[in-house]
């Protein structure tokens, strides 16, 4: 997440495509080493990875697949798990099927470890909680193991018509995860079809960013992001856990994995790391080993 305002001034903005920042000569923490930062937006991760390999970019975002293809010795910056990937049942679906057994069955069917180890290439953490372990400290108490047998038991009494639902996934990069969830659901007795139109889906595969390292604020931001009721304020860990448990109790949101922000970094980039545990960018201490036009230079 760009957080360059302290050391850089915005010089050019093309919504959704490009942003150019220039060094703030009057920065309170001193002028940054880089003269400017040119940010290309909306590029697929695969293309970004190629740009990095070809030297057309110095810092790119990496997905699990791109992470596999990183050249040996390439530097990778990774934040703490700051994004939660979850299944979010739409209010429309909840209106159709008030019976929570379907939602619970889907939650039980998902094989989180397989997704984490294979599709996410072990990035982040498997979790049944909204807040990451490193923020809340109690995330491990939320169950993550799949239980297809119990899921089938829950669905046993339901008519076949209620066992069919659509899973929307807007980001094509997440489609393999959705397909795997659909496969897990199939063996649990649910007919899940993956569709790209998330708006019309019964359940969506979504990600939400943890906005703060403060547990209470982070939980509140996540609840807001998922459209859940605002949790009560809690000062203690127990209170916070109870509030979080209350949020996910009805399985309207099913946390799956907490993911970090991962960036591939060109060898030319010196200094850093340029991101914080929360994934914020701090480029003021970075410099480029070789001068390249338009992208900054040696301090």
């Amino acid at each position, binding site marked *: 997440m760009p957080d360059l305002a302290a050391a850089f001034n915005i010089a050019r903005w093309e919504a959704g495509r490009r942003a150019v920042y220039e060094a703030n000569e009057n920065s309170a923490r001193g002028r940054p080493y880089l003269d400017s930062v040119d940010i290309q937006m909306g590029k697929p991760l695969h293309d970004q990875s190629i740009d990095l390999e070809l030297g057309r970019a110095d810092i790119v975002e990496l997905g699990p697949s791109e992470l596999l293809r990183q050249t040996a010795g390439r530097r990778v910056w990774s934040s703490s798990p700051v994004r939660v990937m979850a299944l979010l049942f739409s209010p429309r679906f909840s209106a159709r099927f008030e019976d929570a057994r379907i939602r619970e069955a889907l939650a039980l069917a998902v094989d989180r470890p397989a997704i984490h*180890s294979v599709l996410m290439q*072990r990035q982040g953490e498997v979790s049944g909680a909204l807040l990451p372990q490193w923020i809340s400290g109690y995330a491990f108490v939320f169950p993550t193991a799949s239980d297809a047998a119990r899921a089938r038991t829950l669905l046993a009494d339901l008519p076949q018509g209620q066992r069919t639902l659509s899973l929307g996934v807007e980001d094509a990069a997440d489609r393999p995860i959705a*397909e795997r969830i659909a496969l897990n659901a199939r063996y649990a007795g649910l007919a899940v079809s993956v569709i790209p139109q998330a708006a019309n889906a019964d359940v969506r595969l979504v990600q939400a960013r943890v906005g703060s390292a403060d547990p209470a604020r982070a939980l509140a931001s996540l609840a807001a992001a998922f459209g859940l009721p605002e949790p009560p304020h809690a000062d203690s860990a127990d209170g916070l856990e109870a509030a979080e448990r209350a949020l996910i109790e009805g399985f309207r949101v099913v946390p799956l994995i907490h993911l970090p922000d991962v960036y591939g970094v060109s060898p030319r980039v010196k200094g850093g790391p340029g991101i914080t545990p929360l994934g914020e960018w701090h480029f003021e201490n970075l410099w480029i080993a070789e001068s390249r036009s338009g992208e900054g230079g040696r301090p």
Partner: protein
Amino acid sequence: MTFRTRLMLVFTVAVVAAVAVVELLVASRTREAFESVEAQRVRALVDQVHRDFARRGLEIVQAVEGIASSETAVSIAIAPDYGRFVDEAAAQSAAHGLDLLELVAGDGAIVSSAQWPARFAFKEDWLAGGGDWKARGAFLKREELPTGFVLALVAVSQTRAGDRTLYVAGGQQLDREFLSTLAMPAGMRVLLYRNLDAQFSPGEIIDASGPVAHAAALRPLIDQVRNSRREADSTLGSGAEAETLHALPLLGYENNLLGVLMFASSRRELVSLEASLLQTGIVVAAAGIVVGIGLSWWATARVTRPVRQLAESAGRVAAGNWGTTVEVSSADEIGQLARAFNRMTHELVAQRERLVQAERVAAWRELARRLAHELKNPLFPLQITVENMQRARERYPGQFDEVFREGTATLLAELDKLKQIVGRFSDFAKMPAPEMQPVDFNKLVSETMKLFDPQLAQARIAGRAELDPRLRPVQADQEQMTRVLRNLVLNAIDAMPQGGALTIRTMAMQTGALPAGVRMAVSDTGQGLTPEECARLFTPYYTTKTHGTGLGLAIVQSVVSDHHGRIWVESEPGKGASFWIELGSDGDR
């Protein structure tokens, strides 16, 4: 129907039947030959498909073994974490032209699946228990895909690296594309039933162009193969749309029935051939019938001509021309028949002449007897009278004149009787030809009955006339017919010396819708006649009475015969007699 027509019909039917039999035989043999060739063709195709399967299987085995022996497979096998190879199967399957490919770890967990990428980490336990996959080669397998089950030709190979094992299971789907690669001769197609469900599913029947229309019709054949697991044949449809199907089971590596491959051979060619044969047969049959009719016309003419001549000659014999003979033109059965006919007519003529001669002699004898009898009666008084006159002249001269006067009177009376007798004989001999004119027989009968009323009353006979009002005048000689009727009435009166009843009936005879003659009966209630008497009754000079010349009924018969009529008598002893006369339109002749 004439004999010749029947003979021609027999010949024609024989020709048509022979042609039909030949046509049937040719059609039957043609069908047998076609089906034999068809069976050979299907067998050759089955062998070809088996070879094709073997070739495809070998290609799949080679591809799978190629993957298994690659460095990539070794890398995967020894990798501590299989997660980074989740997309490897898709890349390898594309590179080796496989529809299906799974890389499976030694514990059976899927490392990577090309056909279902999301199935990583699922277990494929069947691989561990499959034994020597290399020896097994390619085999059929029911494979589950996200879209459902498919039938595939699969091979398995193993990569061993130290104590690590990686299974490589790859293959190709048996689908529409697969079927389209099988070269089928014209008029044939190959169909595949994928036996993927427990129940018959018509949607699983495909050919090279996709799902098959009217697939449900194939169910009996498929069920037969599913039950027996053996090859089976069937014919579906009718006419040119019919197809002969040969089905063979496709078994999986566990000897389970996974599919039924069917070779459908159109019978259009056979139907076309049969139609052509039928058309030719009809033309040949028509020509045969025409030739047969011609030949039978000629043959029957040769056979029936002498028969017809015989029939005509027999007709002439029946008409009285007993001397008719036929020409003997051959030595065969017909010739023998003609010779026998000629002998028969010759014998008939000879016998008739002998009979006529005998009858003539008998008639003359009867005539002599009758003449002697008739003449003897008046001659005896003549002789007595003359002797009396002689005696009177010698012994009583004074009384001679008176005796002479009485004697001459007696002589004249007896001479008159002799004259009458001679006259009657003369009349019979001189019967004139009838002079035809319309005669009202009802009137004739009435007048005759009226004439005989006193005589009937004296004889205590009740006379009655039953006349048909429909009767119209009939051509006849009125005088002769009056004589006929009187003779019959007199004959009836003589037959009833103790009295009785006399009935005369007239009836109009019909020819078509119009009256054309008269039938007349004179019946009495006398003693009747024996059959022998009936037979001789119309013989001249024959009589059952003590008086009479025996010419009355002979004259009646003669008159009726001259009118081309017919007379007969019906009688039984003690039940009277009826004399019937028929005069028809022939009387006009």
